C-alpha cells in the first residue's frame, strides 16, 4: 500500500521539462557599456484534455474522452504545449523588459519557450534572459 502511495505521489508531484524553442538575440560586448544581467519568467497553466479523457476512461467513463475529442476538433493548427486559458500571458514581456532596463540598451536577449509537464496540467513558460547596457561614466 505504501509503495503504491509513494509511486502515485512521485507521479503527480514530479514534473518533466520540455524545451520548444530557443532564440538568441544580438550581443553587444563593447567596453563603453556597463552590463547587468536580468531574467524574466512568465507562465500560465496548460490543460491536457486528451490525458484527462484517458484518465476518466480508465476510471470507467467515456464522457471525458468524448468531450476531449470534440474540443480537439476546434483546436487545430501549429502550437507548442497545451492549451491555456489566458492566451495573452506572454504579452507583458516587453513591458517587463522595459521595467528591468528602463534607460539602457538590451543585449544578448535569450528567450526560451519551455513546458513543465505534470499529469493533466502543465506549466507553459516563457523565460527571457539578457543584459542591460548602460554607458560607462568616464
Amino acid at each position, binding site marked *: 500500500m505504501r509503495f503504491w502511495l509513494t509511486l502515485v505521489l512521485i507521479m503527480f508531484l*514530479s*514534473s*518533466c*521539462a*520540455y*524545451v*520548444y*524553442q*530557443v*532564440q*538568441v*538575440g*544580438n*550581443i*553587444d*560586448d*563593447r*567596453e563603453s557599456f556597463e552590463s547587468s544581467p536580468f531574467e524574466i519568467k512568465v507562465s500560465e497553466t496548460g490543460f491536457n484534455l486528451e490525458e484527462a479523457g484517458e484518465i476518466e476512461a480508465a476510471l470507467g467513463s467515456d464522457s471525458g474522452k468524448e468531450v476531449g475529442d470534440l474540443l480537439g476538433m476546434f483546436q487545430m493548427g501549429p502550437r507548442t504545449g497545451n492549451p491555456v486559458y489566458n492566451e495573452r500571458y506572454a504579452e507583458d514581456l516587453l513591458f517587463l523588459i522595459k521595467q528591468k532596463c528602463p534607460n539602457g540598451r538590451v543585449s*544578448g536577449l*535569450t528567450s*526560451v519557450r*519551455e513546458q513543465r509537464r505534470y499529469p493533466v496540467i502543465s506549466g507553459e513558460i516563457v*523565460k527571457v*534572459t*539578457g543584459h542591460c547596457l548602460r554607458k560607462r561614466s568616464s
Partner: protein
Amino acid sequence: MKLKWLMVFTFMTVMITGCTYLESVSLTNIPEERSKVVSATREKGIIFYFNFDTDFADELSADLRSHCEGGVVSGILTKFENICYVPVFCFYSVNRVTATGYCNR
C-alpha cells in the same frame, strides 16, 4: 548463422542510428562585415524523457560573448534540435542548441 548475423545487424542499426528533429530556428539582423564567424553549442543528454530542468541553454549567450570579447555579435542563427539515438523508444536523446553569428570589433 546468416539469420543470427542479420538479427545482430538489425539490432545494431536500430540502437546506433539516430533520428534528428529540428525544433526551432531563428535569425537576427545580419551585419555588412561578415569575416569573423563565432559559434557556441550547448547540449543535454536525456534518458527516456526524464528531464527536470532546461538550464543547459542559459549560458549560450555568454559562450558566444566570450568568443567575441569587446565586440558585437550579430546575424545570429540559433538552431534547436533534438536527436533521438535509439529511435524505437527514444531511450536516449540529446537536446542541442547551436548559435552561430558574426563578430565585429
